[in-house]
């Protein structure tokens, strides 16, 4: 090992990943080379000094300002998400109501009607609900579970299929 090699292997030496035979070579080299001995000591001292470096502290007024900003923006963000969720729920309610309305008044498209009747006959919850309005012209409030099923049903329709005819 010469001086140059030693210098470029120092990092391994200090982080403990240097192999045993290289450690022995390094020790033997240091023993007879004063510049390398000095280099090693000062490199080690540099590492230690760097570790003593304090991170940049945040000024108090910056901290206060940042905290207010972050809290307010996060509130806005969550409010927007809440609004979005509300809108999505409203749209879903409207779509399901339109589906039931079209079913009652026989305005479902032929494909939707076929798939809808298949679902009605297979799903006890939706079937019971739909039978309960049989004959009625104004649909009763949709139970949440049925609304969920019917929203899912709408999503499984063929792409581009309009649920109502005409």
């Amino acid at each position: 090992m010469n001086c140059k090699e030693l210098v470029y292997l120092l990092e391994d030496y200090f982080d403990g990943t240097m192999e045993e035979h290289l450690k022995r070579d390094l020790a033997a080299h240091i023993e007879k080379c004063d510049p390398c001995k000095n280099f090693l000591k000062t490199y080690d001292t540099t590492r230690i000094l760097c570790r003593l470096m304090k991170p940049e502290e945040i000024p108090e007024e910056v901290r206060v300002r940042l905290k207010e900003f972050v809290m307010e923006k996060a509130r806005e963000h969550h409010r927007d998400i809440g609004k979005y969720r509300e809108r999505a729920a409203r749209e879903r309610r409207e779509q399901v109501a339109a589906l039931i309305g079209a079913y009652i008044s026989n305005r479902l498209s032929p494909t939707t009607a076929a798939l809808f009747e298949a679902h009605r006959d297979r799903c006890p919850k939706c079937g019971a609900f739909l039978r309960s309005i049989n004959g009625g012209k104004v649909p009763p409030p949709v139970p949440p579970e049925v609304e969920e099923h019917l929203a899912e049903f709408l999503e499984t329709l063929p792409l581009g299929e309009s649920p109502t005819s005409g």
Partner: protein
Amino acid sequence: MASERLQDDNVLLEELRGGNPEAVEALFDRFHGKIYSLAMSIVKNESDAEEAVQDVFMTVVQKVHTFKGNSALYSWIYRICVNTCLMRLRGKRRHETVSIEEFMPVFTEEGMHASLIDDWSKEVERKALDKELGQVIRKSTESLSEKYRVVFVLSDVEGLSNEETAKILGLTVPAVKSRLHRARLYLREQLSRYLREGKTH
């Protein structure tokens, strides 16, 4: 102060996803100091650092549902911080940085030291708490290009392992080690010159 249970990463994440303002506060209280100092060390001025910290927290709040938990929460946040700061630097005029090559040790063709190597370690031990010496290191670090500076700050100032630093920066461990080594060689040389001549270059 937010409640104790928010100190747990998984609880904190869950509550953040649910939009709990206390969780946002706990997140801020826990990370703002680290994020600020990391941002300062990359962008190097207070107003940029402040804006970077704003961006980091907003990214965390908005993207919290995408965090998969493959890495620790702090390392995800550090990564966001590093990326945010580097994006900010990209749009700016470059700071003056030194060319690190000028500070690398020089060797003869036979691979022997080509310059005088003094042992100033004893002298520094006496000065260890010296403010001036701290300033020399800080100034020298600041004139490093961010390629080396970021690695140096994560490793030596923040005290992260090479593996953690590599993950945060998207580098390999050998690349981190090599940059860190060069940063230390550079600082060793800056300190040598300072102690020899009383000034840095």
